[in-house]
């Protein structure tokens, strides 16, 4: 599978030279194989998604980890949604109260957006997911709820014996003593188990996290520890704080405690990985 990072910024898009290297667009990652295309999250980076070959069967699948605005704001600017020849499937976490359609409609309707979701010209199908397992073309996908405010899932994507795990918003350390040493008690660990690549929340430095416990995000140190527990082969630190410049990100990353030698790097917009 080919993985293309379209946006790695958390919370709100940033622009300007200070965030140029790692990028200012919010969460979005393309995954493609055998003519099939998945789009993970619909942040502002989504505007640069689907600019290549037309996908097989004119079908695109958008997988949303959750519905915070930085993960859906690109939907209104995603061309396939306005193309009547396209078949678009949106997969998003189930809520105990409102349907996915109802929750997405809160954004895709006036006054926040001029077009109602019901008026989108594409052939649109919505799928509610929770602890789910399903296939999309050649991809086998597992989802689990993970710790983050509101219904939020992570994705484990298997293709040709390679695993890409995507958990951009996640706070596994929430609690009195941080991440519990016993893997049975760690949110998201099954999704990440021995993944070839894990893209994971790393919004804060270790020091900043102490002031933001419960906000739903991880420190870089916790992300590395989580990856170490899960035995992942490579970790991409993502969901960069909008207040962090490229220089700050590199300083924080250079100071991460990494006793187990986890291979990691800062995720950057435009990054392409063949897995």
């Amino acid at each position, binding site marked *: 599978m080919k993985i293309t990072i379209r946006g790695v910024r958390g919370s709100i898009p940033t622009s300007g030279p200070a965030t140029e290297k790692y990028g200012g667009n919010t969460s979005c990652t393309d995954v493609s194989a055998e003519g099939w295309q998945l789009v993970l999250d619909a942040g502002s980076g989504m505007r640069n998604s689907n600019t290549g070959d037309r996908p097989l069967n004119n079908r695109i699948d958008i997988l949303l980890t959750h519905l915070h605005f930085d993960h859906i704001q690109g939907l209104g600017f995603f061309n396939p949604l306005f193309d009547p020849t396209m078949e678009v499937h949106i997969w998003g976490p*189930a809520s*105990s109260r409102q349907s996915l359609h109802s929750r997405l409609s809160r954004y895709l309707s006036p006054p926040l957006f001029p077009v109602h979701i019901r008026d989108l010209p594409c052939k649109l199908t919505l799928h509610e997911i929770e602890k789910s397992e399903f296939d999309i073309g050649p991809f086998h996908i597992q989802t689990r709820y993970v710790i983050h405010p509101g219904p939020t899932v992570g994705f484990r994507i298997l293709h040709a014996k390679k695993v890409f795990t995507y958990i951009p918003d996640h706070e596994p350390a929430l609690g*009195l003593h941080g991440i519990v040493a016993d*893997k*049975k008690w*760690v949110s998201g660990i*099954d999704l990440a188990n021995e993944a070839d690549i894990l893209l994971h929340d790393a919004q804060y430095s270790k020091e900043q996290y102490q002031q933001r416990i419960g906000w739903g995000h991880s420190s870089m140190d916790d992300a590395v520890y989580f990856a170490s527990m899960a035995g992942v082969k490579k970790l991409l630190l993502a969901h960069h704080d909008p207040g962090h410049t490229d220089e700050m990100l590199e300083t924080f990353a250079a100071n991460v405690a990494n006793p187990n030698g986890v291979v990691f790097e800062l995720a950057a917009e435009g990054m392409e990985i063949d897995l």
Partner: protein
Amino acid sequence: MAYEIEVILNRQLADCLSIPVFITDRKGNLIYYNEPAELILGKRYDDTGEMPATEWSTIFKPMDEEGNGLPPDELPLVKTLMNCKPYHKTFFIENLNGNIEKISVTSYPILGRASTFLGAVALFWDSKDE
């Protein structure tokens, strides 16, 4: 396989509380108890790990005011496990020193977002002054 996050978050909450908390899976196996609960059980979680229902349920000797033993299906946690509903009851138990103590137990089911029953939680309240 890891527990669902609803169960994990209950454990993390229990870790922060000063009252005894017991967490079971759907079958009543004890999957976690916090430090205050260790004093009641007389065991440490780090030593025992999880305990099967048959083992930990025999540690308590629940009884009524007159010292008559209470059947399991009258205990809040057992009722929660059977009916997936919250219960509360005040009764007596014999502590580790053989003394009789008055306690109250509040139990509630862990129902996940999809209304899936994932386990139960029991909180023990010291009721000796009531």
